[in-house]
């Protein structure tokens, strides 16, 4: 089945009816072309919202409402209950938008519930990342341009999203992993950074970082997610997941290296 750009946009914005969303997600798993179509519509919603938020502070002083009011002849109506403060962003929208942010190009994750052992402190994010990563094929990254300036700009953007530093030179110097791209995604309103690598054997591997919100450090734990090798740990206020491919030794070694460097 093919989807119009409008339908895909509605899906990304969480506006597609449930049944249609589910059908689309089922289709996504077997239809790489659809993933590409979704990627072509992918925008950085948190960045857009935060850019717009910067305009709020540029407002000129508010007009003198009392003076304006006096200039209006109409008598005041009888005072009556004030409306509830207009909380324009409903909880539903918050949940939908954060979910949608994570779904940029993902989709398949909806059917999954947190089922991976030991992830209870942060239910969900590792599942989402694993599902996202499962869609990666070597072609996803082989043609990505990797000049230093681009990588630096992307990495700076990612670092800024997490309010921390990220060192491009370090990311580029890992043995067996070629640094290809840094992207800012989002999970439940929190920025989620994905650093994408291609292994020497051509397998896509990603290091994902999300703020830990005060959670305690956790030692590195190897795991298998969606048939991929992975390792997760928490350190210094951030949670990490390294995931991708079948090379357990590579993942464990790289995870130790990241853990030591970051």
């Amino acid at each position, binding site marked *: 089945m093919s989807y119009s*750009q*409008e339908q895909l*946009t*509605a899906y*990304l*914005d969480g*506006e597609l009816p449930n049944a249609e969303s589910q059908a689309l997600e089922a289709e996504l798993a077997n239809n790489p072309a659809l993933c590409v179509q979704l*990627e*072509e*519509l*992918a*925008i*950085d*919603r948190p*960045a*857009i*919202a*935060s*850019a*717009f*938020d*910067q*305009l*709020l*502070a*540029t*407002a*000129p002083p*508010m*007009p003198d*409402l009392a003076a*304006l*009011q006096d*200039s*209006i002849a*109409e008598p*005041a*109506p*009888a*005072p*009556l*209950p*004030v*409306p509830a*403060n*207009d909380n*324009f*962003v*409903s909880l539903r*929208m*918050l949940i939908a*938008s954060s979910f949608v942010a994570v779904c940029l190009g993902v989709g398949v994750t909806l059917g999954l519930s947190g089922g991976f052992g030991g992830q209870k402190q942060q239910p969900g994010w590792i599942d989402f990342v694993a599902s996202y990563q499962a869609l990666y094929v070597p072609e996803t990254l082989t043609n990505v*341009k990797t000049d230093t*300036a*681009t990588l*630096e*700009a*992307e990495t*700076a953007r990612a670092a*800024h999203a997490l309010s921390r530093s990220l060192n491009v030179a370090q990311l580029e110097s890992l043995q067996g992993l070629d640094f290809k791209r840094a992207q800012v995604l989002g999970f439940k309103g929190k920025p989620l950074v994905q650093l994408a690598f291609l292994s020497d054997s051509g397998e896509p591997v990603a290091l994902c970082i999300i703020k830990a919100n005060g959670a305690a450090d956790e030692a590195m734990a190897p795991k298998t997610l969606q048939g991929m090798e992975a390792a997760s740990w928490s350190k210094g206020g951030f949670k990490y997941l390294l995931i991708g491919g079948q090379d357990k030794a590579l993942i464990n070694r790289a995870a130790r290296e990241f853990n030591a460097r970051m």
Partner: protein
Amino acid sequence: MQRKLLDHAAVSEAIKTVYPRLWRYCLTLTGNHTDAQDLVQAACLRALEKIRQFDPESHFDRWIFTITRRMWLNELRSKSVRQGTGVDPIEEIELIDSSAGPESNILGREVLDGIMALPEAQRMAVLLVYAEGYSYKEASEVLEVPIGTVMSRLSTARVKLASQFTTQEGEG
């Protein structure tokens, strides 16, 4: 049932609460500082005048956004074009975000420039759905167009923004 009304204090409070967002809305709508200033003033005045038409059970922000957009389309935009104002385009506005460093301002600038380069109808849809967090239905009510129109505006905007972003990254 008799319609409830707001007293003056409540109206002032409601306007005050929504004012920074109203400013942003005017800026996005007009695309320039000068017209946005005129529009935000006029909109506050119009809201005071028309407050009897506002149903306190509904949403004040959506109501004032709707009347502001109508004013811009019906009264002020043509005047602005005739008088050739708009000498102070939105690109010139300095972004101040005290909570973040200059880096964030530069990033915000890039993103905003891309959005402001979109046609008015598209950037308004982007503002309402992606910054205000409105549903398609809510945005369609404020913009007074069918939901399908909101969807297609967002879809076109997404294609442009996504490709622009890729290009910028490529050039970086």
